[in-house]
């Protein structure tokens, strides 16, 4: 939770005809935070961002930015700037004119304007590009120009709509770090929309996961990845083995859960309360599962046998798919490729035993 709320979204809904794009969302975003709105396409994250920018007016609810009521303020009067998904660089203007576009009203003298623009150009490491036309720029450069054009306005909040979606993988990874650094330098609150969970985990201080117009969970990347509360979030962030189950009993610091695929397993109690017999879901991260050898000394709290059916080799690691008896959903196990361990393990249709510790078993409420 942020110590002080800088952007406050209270009970905000947006209807388009009979479609509810955003459904009574409450969010508090702190000053200087790098905040991600994460969700699959059509979950309402972009609509929520557009309401922050002022392009859409909430059907219900209030938006406050730095203590000021914003819901019906037009976009050109908000202390907010946006980096558009396609960057929206003005094609008839060169880089300098694009970046200086928002400064018309400031009526700066020419040398002052020159200095402001060249400062921002050096911030985005594009000195000497002022005279270039947009069609002479690469995708990454266009993105930087879009950033510079927004940042030169010194906004209180910078909104980014899928900022890295159009870039290729290597460039995207590089820009993720650069964006993060840039945000630290300028200290502006960043709110960005993405459908890429990896991007959200890498870049953000906190993430709000959205689905079907609602915010399901808000938390730090570590929180959401390691302790998801809902099945959707568990499934959406990273790879997850999720099974239906119900609570059999409570045993000291553990719940005993019955599942069809894994049988009866125990899980350490974290914070949630379940009643006996309650239907819920059990989740296991692939990296928390291990192949158990007869020589292995580690004691496992739970284990199950199955037949290896498939491997996905990633170089530094591999994912092994293990068919379980009585289930059409394979168990995904991730192994680190230490001294070729993954490539050695990934052979044939042999039978393996998979083990886990009970503290790695996640219990999820059924939404």
């Amino acid at each position, binding site marked *: 939770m942020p110590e002080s709320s800088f952007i406050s979204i209270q009970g905000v809904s947006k209807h388009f005809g009979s479609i509810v794009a955003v459904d009574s969302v409450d969010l508090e975003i702190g000053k200087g935070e790098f905040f991600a709105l994460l969700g699959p396409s059509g979950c309402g994250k972009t609509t929520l961002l557009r309401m922050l*920018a002022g*392009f859409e007016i909430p059907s219900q609810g209030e938006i406050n930015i730095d203590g000021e009521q914003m819901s019906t303020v037009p976009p050109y009067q908000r202390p907010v700037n946006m980096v*558009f998904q*396609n960057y929206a660089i003005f094609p*008839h203007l060169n880089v300098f004119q694009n970046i200086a*576009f*928002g400064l018309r009203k400031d009526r700066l003298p020419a040398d002052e304007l020159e200095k402001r623009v060249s400062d921002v150009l050096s911030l985005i490491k594009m000195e000497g590009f002022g005279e270039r036309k947009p069609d002479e720029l690469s995708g990454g450069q266009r993105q930087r120009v879009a950033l510079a*054009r927004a940042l030169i*306005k010194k906004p209180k909040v910078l909104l980014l709509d899928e900022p890295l979606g159009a870039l290729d993988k290597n460039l995207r990874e590089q820009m993720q770090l650069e964006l993060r650094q840039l945000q630290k330098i300028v200290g502006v609150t960043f709110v960005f929309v993405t459908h890429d969970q990896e991007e959200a985990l890498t870049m953000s201080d906190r993430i709000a996961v959205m689905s079907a117009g609602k915010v399901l969970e808000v938390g730090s990347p570590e929180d959401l990845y390691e302790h998801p509360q809902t099945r959707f979030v568990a499934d959406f962030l990273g790879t997850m083995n999720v099974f239906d189950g119900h609570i059999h009993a409570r045993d000291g610091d553990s719940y005993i859960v019955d599942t069809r695929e894994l049988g009866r397993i125990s899980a350490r109690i974290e914070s949630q309360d379940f009643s006996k017999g309650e239907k819920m879901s059990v989740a296991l991260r692939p990296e928390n599962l291990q192949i158990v050898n007869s020589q292995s000394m580690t004691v496992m709290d739970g284990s199950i046998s199955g037949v290896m059916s498939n491997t996905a080799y990633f170089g530094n690691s591999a994912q092994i798919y293990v068919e379980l008896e009585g289930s059409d959903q394979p168990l995904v196990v991730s192994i680190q490729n230490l001294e070729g361990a993954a490539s050695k393990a990934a052979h044939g249709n042999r039978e393996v035993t998979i083990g886990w510790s009970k503290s790695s078993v996640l219990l999820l409420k059924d939404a």
Partner: protein
Amino acid sequence: MKSSTDKTSLSAMSLWRRYPALKGYALASPAILLMIVALVSPFLLLAGTSFKIETGSSDEWMLSLANYEFFFEKSHYVNTLVRSIFISTLVALVTVLLAYPAAYFIAFHVHENKMLWLIMITLPFWTSYLLRVFSWKLILGYNGFINSGLMWLDLIKQPLDFILYNTNAVILTLAHAWAAFAILPIYVSLQKIDKSLIEAAHDLGENKIYSFLRVTLPLSMPGVVAALLLVFIPTVGDYVTPKLVGGPKGLMIGNLIQSAFGRLDNWPLGAAISIISMITVTFAVCLFLLGINRVRKVLI
């Protein structure tokens, strides 16, 4: 040996593949042929005719610049040419000014049935040009719709006689007749503008008016320029509208050409006026395009 014969039989095909430009020429050949038959040869004939003068007997001709000299000696002819250019410039400006809001409306505020709107705009063109000019005569005439309407409302005692048979009537009629030729190119250029550019302008602090002036208008300039040319070039030579609604003061160069070919039966003179008018229009258009380029460089 066999492989080489195969190669020959395929050569036409592979030539085709290797030089895509050939395919282009082949596809364009009907149009090129038509241009030569229907445009280039008549033009050469016209140019040739303009240098002829009659020597008295009907089948003897002489080459000379006399027709051109005759044109420039008559101030009436030169004035008519200048007036034609002036009227057409005004028509082009008025048409584009009237067309822009219509095109803007369809491009940005009509979300369904855009096609229907566009068809409705071309609807007047489904009737004959002559009929449309005549209907303006009915509207603007001495006992026309406007005069009788104003008299019925008791706003005037006498019918106004300055609304028909003058330059204004010509401009109004032509502007209406050519509206679609201005709306369509402007619509296309507006339609192509990425809406997020306008949002970006708002986002960067510009209200609707400034966003229009700084983003929408400059990006739609290609359409505006096309519309200006599409209206200006053909209206210079128009002779039906000035004849029907222009009166003596609204006469244009087309009327002179028509009478040279008709009543005066002086084809060489008519041809010379046509060539002069063509050159003038080309010159005016070049000047205009140069000016536009200059303005663009200064503004941007």
